[in-house]
């Protein structure tokens, strides 16, 4: 829809007329915007005949006649007659004719002889831009996807001096303890760095290093390095599959963005991917970012956390989780819309430091590290993950890679106060090591919420209290997750989308730097997440943000009371750990979550830590 350039500074004369008995809301919105911009606007009343509209418009000698039609019956005939009447009256010699409204399709308007047609989803700004002579692309929205530093502007200073002092003391003890130790995970991270540096430098590159690497691996991963036998349920990516991602990457260079999702443009909404297949992942990432996701998070298979070692080459996996290799990450990166933020998680298993290396080499923007969750909720031996986690944080600092410190152990039943105490110690260690961590409280109906009654009357107070207490303790970015709404979603996609959207809106309203959302398939375990279910929750989140706008969400006074209670409980946990004098022992002994809470120190990697030579 092109038109000659019109000087927007010159006021235009516009006649607006509803071709309906009653409906003129859209025209009133356009009138308000046009008047605000200094144009001369006449809005005719509803229920005039086309002849009356033409007659009254002619007397105004307008530059534009814009009519709307909401009712669908007889629309084409009515509009065709209107155009004929305008022609007969000589109105078109000077004025441009525009049709819009619920029953309008732009292509039909133009077929009928209008200069432009605006469909029901057209923003008012588009109609105004047309009057002012600006080029208007009605096909799709466009936006410049831009990466954001989620940690910018935060000082990481403790605002709560007692908790700050406790965290600093405990974190120093943890770092000092870990500095004297090493593990196969730490050694493989260094080997991987060396192996990748040698890649392509010589024929049979890194054979010696690979052999060392294999000796530090276990299970099916070791078997692959030694015999070439693929890990169960995996197969190599084919040329055709790699080609499909390359082809998609060309499309991702000029993506189409639905205008309805523009509200997410300045919000940092992340989604998780990990279908097992890099091709399907690439499509899911592409459509999720088109519908408003600012960032995506790589999910690897659960066996990737329990085996020592990571594979090489590109693999497809028949089950949940996409195999973590530099080649797979490279393929996926190719399909990212430029400007998409990308997180590769390294938080929970036996390959934590090496995953940070891969995230860096692949060009990821963020990673995820948490010693406490990985130890108490994800099956890795606490001593091992403490050594690996500290190394991972050192690497992340070296690579200038921010990471979140997630507290999903709450899902096992660990009370928020214990989970937060652990998170704050790890965050403090991260800062002492020169890193830029983000706090990741769980936004969910956690077992604690149900048992204590914190979530009995609403889901707002407990979540708001979590944000309040963390913001009162430390000046650091908060990124609720992961994803928000855990244990509130059901298999009903309407309910699931609403719950996700409300949790996301609440988090952003509370000042979250970012938020991770699930698909509407979150509670469905019968098969892989599908593409439409991803769009469901992105659309719902957009709608919730539109609904609350700048109106905010008000908690009850209970939120303040819970926040106070949480603060006291966090401090009490930290005092116990400080008195114990050993962070890792505290993990084994249940100070950050015991068996009664539902936390069990993991066993993967037990006995693999050694003192440095």
């Amino acid at each position, binding site marked *: 829809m092109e038109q000659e350039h019109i000087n927007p500074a010159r006021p235009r004369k516009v006649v607006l007329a509803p071709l309906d008995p009653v409906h003129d809301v859209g025209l009133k919105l356009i009138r308000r915007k046009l008047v605000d911009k200094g144009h001369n606007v006449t809005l005719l009343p509803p229920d005039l005949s086309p002849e009356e509209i033409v007659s009254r418009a002619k007397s105004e000698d307008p530059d534009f006649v814009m009519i709307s039609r909401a009712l669908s019956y007889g629309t084409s005939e009515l509009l065709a007659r209107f155009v004929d009447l305008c022609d007969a009256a000589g109105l078109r010699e000077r004025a441009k004719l525009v049709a819009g409204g619920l029953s309008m399709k732009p292509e039909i308007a133009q077929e009928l002889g209008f200069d432009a047609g605006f469909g029901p989803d057209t923003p008012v700004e588009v109609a105004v831009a047309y009057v002012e002579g600006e080029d208007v692309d009605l096909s799709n929205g466009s936006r410049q996807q831009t990466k954001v530093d989620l940690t910018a502007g935060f000082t990481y200073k403790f605002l709560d001096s007692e908790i700050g002092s406790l965290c600093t003391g405990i974190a120093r003890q943890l770092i000092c303890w870990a500095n004297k130790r090493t593990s196969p995970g730490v050694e493989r991270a260094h080997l991987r760095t060396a192996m990748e540096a040698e890649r392509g430098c010589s024929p049979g590159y890194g054979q010696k290093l690979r052999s060392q690497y294999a000796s530090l691996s276990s299970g099916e991963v070791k078997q692959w390095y030694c015999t070439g036998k693929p890990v169960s349920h995996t197969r190599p990516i084919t040329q055709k599959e790699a080609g499909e991602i390359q082809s998609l990457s060309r499309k991702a260079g000029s993506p189409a963005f639905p205008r309805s999702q523009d509200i997410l443009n300045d919000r940092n909404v992340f989604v998780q991917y990990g279908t097992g297949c890099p091709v399907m992942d690439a499509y899911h990432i592409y*459509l999720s970012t088109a519908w408003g996701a600012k960032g995506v998070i790589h999910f690897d298979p659960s066996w990737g956390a329990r085996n020592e070692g990571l594979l090489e080459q590109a693999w497809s996996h028949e089950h949940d989780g996409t195999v973590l290799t530099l080649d797979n990450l490279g393929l996926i990166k190719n399909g990212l819309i430029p400007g998409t933020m990308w997180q590769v998680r390294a938080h929970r298993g036996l390959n934590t430091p090496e995953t940070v290396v891969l995230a860096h080499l692949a060009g990821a923007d963020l990673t995820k590290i948490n010693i406490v969750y990985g130890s108490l909720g994800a099956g890795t031996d606490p001593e091992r993950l403490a050594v690996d986690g500290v190394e991972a944080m050192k690497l992340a600092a070296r690579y200038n890679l921010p990471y979140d410190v997630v507290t999903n152990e709450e899902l096992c039943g660990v009370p928020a106060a214990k989970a937060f105490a652990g998170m704050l110690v790890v965050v403090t260690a991260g800062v002492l090591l020169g890193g830029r961590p983000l706090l990741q409280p769980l936004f969910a109906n956690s077992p604690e919420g149900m048992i204590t009654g914190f979530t009995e009357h609403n889901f707002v107070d407990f979540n708001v209290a979590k944000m309040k207490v963390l913001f009162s303790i430390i000046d650091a970015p908060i990124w609720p997750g992961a994803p928000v709404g855990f244990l509130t979603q*059901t*298999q009903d*996609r309407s309910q699931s989308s609403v719950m996700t959207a409300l949790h996301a809106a609440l988090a952003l309203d509370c000042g979250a730097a970012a938020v991770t959302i699930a698909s509407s398939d979150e509670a469905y375990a019968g098969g892989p997440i*599908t*593409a439409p279910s991803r769009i469901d929750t992105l659309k719902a989140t957009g709608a919730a943000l539109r609904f609350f706008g700048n109106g905010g969400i008000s908690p009850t006074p209970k939120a303040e009371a819970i926040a106070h209670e949480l603060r006291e409980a966090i401090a009490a946990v930290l005092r116990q750990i400080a008195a114990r004098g050993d962070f890792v022992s505290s993990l084994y002994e249940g100070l950050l979550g015991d068996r009664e809470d539902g936390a069990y120190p993991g066993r993967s990697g037990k006995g693999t830590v050694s003192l440095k030579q």
Partner: protein
Amino acid sequence: MSVKHRILDGCDVETFMLCNDLEEGKALGLRLMAELGFEDADVVFCEMGGPGVRIRLRGYVYRPSADYRWYGLEVE
């Protein structure tokens, strides 16, 4: 190529089915998916209320790692 192979992964069918109880609703739903030609179908959500069930059915055309027939498709 069948239109079905333009589906990226799965196709959901949502409707209200008249039935006597939840189990009958689910069974009817799966029969419907079979009649529509979905071989890999499941009930994602089903809730009884009043004269029948609100049901959401899913037919996976492609699960991850399958040999997708939309490869190389140039979507206009």
